[in-house]
Structures are given as structure tokens and as C-alpha cells.
């Protein structure tokens, strides 16, 4: 057969093979994740009185939510939280990753130590930080000598959000570190060697070799941390209950889904949250797609 024909038949095999490889993933995810979205889309167009369906309401729920300050305040709080904590997690996680990749005495233990915050169950971590920041008995206030003993972290507007961000960054910086560490492994040592021979400084090697080659891993880390932060629930719920401007979108959703149930509004808020998170996620995906698409086609 001519080489063109071989190439064509091989590419056909690849395409259907690709579908076969992808199929199990798609099926599993569709089965579980698609249903709640469809469920919520249906519910959101009805109006409810408590748990009783009153009637078809079209987009009334959406209009009500979008025009209410009660919706935009949690949106604001969530955005502030996400921006601050993802930035900090990235910077600290990058530092951790660079350290974890190096060889030095005690590196195995250090790598394990860095991952300790990540393995602590979230249910415990939220309570732990809440109790440490509490004025009574005031663990953090006592041991952080520069903070006055009766500093009311969780009861002061502004500082409540800071406390929550600290707790979140502590817990999830290792996640970012792990992702970036895996990414660092794909950069061969010889690239650095030739750069060093050419006289590049450590900083130049970092900014012109490491960072660009790490870009896909960075984007994945930022993507997943962002979409998770946008949906944070446990931490603010346990630490402040949403007081002083720390109520997040997911807390608002939970209010209408479970606390004071209104299935129509709860579904509406879920869909709105979903759309918002999807939008931000897509920005990252498009940035990432350019990097990934190059791998398959350009050969």
C-alpha cells in the first residue's frame, strides 16, 4: 500500500480508538454529574412556597436572584476569597514545589511534612482553625506575640475574611505544590545545564526556563484551585457562619436548598453558581487548550 493510504487508515483507527479510550470517562461522569444539573434546570423554573410547588414561574426566580443584594454580596465575598487565597496558594505552593524538587538532607521528611496540611480531613481542619482563632481561649492570640490577647479575629469585619483565607491557604497550598512538583519533573536537567553554561543566573533560569515550561501545570493548578475556592462552603460556615461579609455563594445555595428550603430558588442559585464557576473555568481551559492542543496535532 502507498504510505498515504497507510497514514490514512492509521489515523482512522486512532480516531475511533480515541473515542474508545475516552468513553468510560465520559459515561461515568455523564451518569453522575449531568443529572443534578438537569434536575436543577427543571426545578428552577417553578416557584415554591416552602416545599410545595406553586406553579410555573419561567425566569422569575432568576430575575429575583440577580436583582437582589442578597445574591451579589456573597458573590463579592466569594470573589475576594478566591482571588486572595488562590494567589497565596500559588505563590506558597510554587515555593514548596521548588523545595520539594531539590536534593538536600531530610528531603523525604520535608516532602511529607509539606503534605501534612493537605491530608487532614476538611471537617477537622475547619473546626481546628475556628477554635484556634477564637478569642476564648485564644491560642493564636497567645502564641503570636505581636497580636493583642483579645484580638477578635472572627468577630471583626475584614479580619474574619483574613482568618478564613489563612486557614484555606494552609490547607491547600500543598495541593498546588504537588501539582507543580509533578510538572517540574517534566523539565529535563540538561536544559538547565546548557543555560548555566551560557551564563544565565538562577533568576534568569527560573523565569525563562522553569516558568514557561511549567505553564500547563500552573494553569491546571490555578484552574482547579479557583473553581474549588469559588464553591467553598465548610470553612466559612464553621469558622464564622457567614458573619461580617464572609458568606459565600455555596452557603447561599445551602440556605435555600436545605436550611429554609425553597426548591425553586435553591435550584436557581445552583444554576447561577454553576454558570459563574463554568465561566471562570472556561477562561483557564482556553488558555490551557492552546498548550495541550499542540501535543496531539503537531507531529
Amino acid at each position, binding site marked *: 500500500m502507498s504510505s498515504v493510504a497507510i497514514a490514512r487508515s492509521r489515523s482512522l483507527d486512532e480516531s475511533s480508538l480515541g473515542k474508545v479510550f475516552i468513553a468510560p470517562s465520559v459515561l*461515568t461522569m455523564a451518569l*453522575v454529574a449531568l443529572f443534578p444539573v438537569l434536575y436543577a434546570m427543571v426545578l428552577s423554573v417553578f416557584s415554591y412556597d416552602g416545599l410545595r410547588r406553586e406553579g410555573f414561574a419561567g425566569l422569575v426566580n432568576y430575575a429575583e436572584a440577580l436583582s437582589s443584594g442578597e445574591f451579589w454580596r456573597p458573590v463579592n465575598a466569594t470573589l475576594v476569597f478566591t482571588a486572595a487565597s488562590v494567589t497565596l496558594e500559588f505563590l506558597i505552593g510554587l515555593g514548596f514545589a521548588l523545595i520539594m524538587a531539590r536534593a*538536600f538532607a531530610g528531603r523525604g521528611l520535608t516532602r511529607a511534612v509539606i*503534605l501534612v496540611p493537605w491530608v*487532614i480531613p*476538611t471537617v477537622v481542619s475547619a473546626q481546628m482553625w475556628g*477554635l484556634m482563632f477564637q478569642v476564648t481561649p485564644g491560642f493564636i492570640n497567645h502564641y503570636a506575640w505581636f497580636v493583642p490577647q483579645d484580638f477578635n479575629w472572627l468577630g471583626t469585619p475584614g479580619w474574619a475574611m483574613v482568618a478564613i483565607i489563612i486557614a484555606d491557604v494552609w490547607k491547600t497550598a500543598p495541593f498546588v505544590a504537588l501539582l507543580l512538583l509533578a510538572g517540574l519533573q517534566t523539565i529535563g*536537567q540538561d536544559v538547565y545545564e546548557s543555560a548555566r553554561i551560557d551564563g544565565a543566573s538562577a533568576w534568569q533560569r527560573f523565569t525563562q526556563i522553569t516558568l514557561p515550561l511549567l505553564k500547563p501545570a500552573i494553569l491546571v493548578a490555578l484552574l482547579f484551585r479557583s473553581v474549588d475556592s469559588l464553591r467553598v462552603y465548610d470553612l466559612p460556615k464553621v469558622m464564622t457562619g457567614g458573619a461580617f461579609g464572609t458568606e459565600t455563594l455555596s452557603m447561599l445555595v445551602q440556605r435555600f436548598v436545605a436550611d429554609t428550603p425553597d426548591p425553586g430558588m435553591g435550584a436557581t442559585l445552583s444554576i447561577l453558581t454553576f454558570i459563574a464557576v463554568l465561566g471562570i473555568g472556561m477562561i483557564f481551559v482556553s488558555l490551557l487548550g492552546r498548550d495541550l492542543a499542540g501535543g496531539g496535532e503537531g507531529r
Partner: protein
Amino acid sequence: MAVARDRHGAAGRCRRARRWGGVALLAIIWCWCLLPFAWLIDVSLKTGNNALSSPLLTQGPFGLDNYASVFGQGFGYNLRNSMIVASVTTILCISIGSLAAYALARLRLRRKALILAGVLAVSLYPPVALVPPLYELWRSLGLLNTYAGLYIPYTAFTLPLVIFILTTFFASIPSEMEDAARVDGATPFQTFARVILPLSAPGVFAAAILVFVHAWNEFLLASTFAPRSLAVQTVPVAISVFTGSVPFQHPIGAITAACVIVTVPMILLVLLFQRRIVAGLTAGGVKG
């Protein structure tokens, strides 16, 4: 470079300063990561109900009461359940996810961006809103209080992360290796299993750890689908059911004790696998 260093004094002084700087940095990192964990251990060892009545970590009395009470509540079963669910989730995620990632990274597939977007979209729904619809669905499928009722959704919701990590990882592997394998007559699947996977060990291990820990610590779905039956109840749910000795009393002692019990094996696991995560691309001689 060497010339520049000498100009500022003995090269030894510079090196010593850097070493002390490194030690100081390590100390800061260790403190940052471990001090809260030290708090956990400290509170778990305080007996009675005044664990929180003093800001001092050294305030006694101390004892192992909390640990005794944790195991007295059937915690061993919860550890087993979490182990099984997390392990199955990890195995499923890695096997299914790596196939999908390979397809996305290497094989010709139309509309990759769309697929990537769809994969991501799956995991974006606010978790608290998943509970009512999935509970209904699980009820009718008879999946409540079963292991499958847990590892199926866990797999579904963690697959996006795995796929994204592994796709970027696979995409960064130079194609010479696969071309060599293809010239030798290997099918794409063989190429995948024998060439790509071993080369991506660091990425695969990192993803595996992330999935395992994530499944282990998941609370919301576990408390909805397997809330009470000791046959399936996982560790985070068990912790949330701990009680004090009287109403209103917060069982912080039992909670922290359970947390320590659970964290120690996880840290050992990480210690065991941490070298795998940093194994470089030395296997198989990629370069040269």
C-alpha cells in the same frame, strides 16, 4: 560567577550564609505546616472537658482517654471503609482517566477543546446542591449504604482533575519515544501501556495521591449516601457523629484524636511514595 563571589569576601562565608538561610527556610516551612498539627495532637491528649479553657498548650491534665473513646465507637470499621472506598476510587480514576488523558494528549480526536470543557464542567456544580437530586437517584438505584454508591460518584467527580493532570503530563513527553515504539510495530494501546505510563510515573503517582486523599476526606456525599451504617460509614462522617458527654458539649477531644489516628497512616503513605513523585525522566533514557 566565581569571580563575583570572591569579590564580596571569602566564598566560605557566602556558602555558610546560604546554608543557614536554607536551614532557616526549612524551619519556617516545618513550623508553618506542623504547628497546627501539633495543636491537634495536643488537644487530643487533653482529658476532661477543658481542652479549650486555656490558651496554653501545656495546660493539662493529659491522658489517652480520647483515643480510647474513639475506638470504642467502632472507628476501626470506619478506617476500613475509608480505605476501601479511597483505594477503589483511586484505581478507577487512574485507569479510566489515564486512557482518556492519553487520547486527549496524543490521539487524533476531534473537538478536543469541547471535550476538555465538558470534562471540566462536570466537576463545577456546587457540591451542596448535589445532595437532593443524587439522593433521590441513589435511592431508586438502591445504591444507598453501599461502597459502589460512594466510589462511583467519587470517581466521576475526581476524573476531571486526573484527566487534566495526566493530559498535560502526557503532552509534555517528547514524541520520539512513541515514534520509536510505532516503528517497532506497537499498537497505540501498547505504546500507552509500555512507553507512556512508565515515563509518566511521577505524574501518575502525584495524581494517585491527590485522588486518594480527596476520596478519603470527602464528607458531603459520604454523609448523604452512607450516613449511619457501620458497614459503609467513612471516617469523616464518623468524626462528625462524635458526641460529647452532654448535649451542647463539643467533642473536640475525640475529634482531634480521630484526626491524628487518621493522619498518621496517611503521612506514612506519603513518606513511602514521595520519592516516586520526584523520580525524574531517567528511566528508559529519553535524552541521548
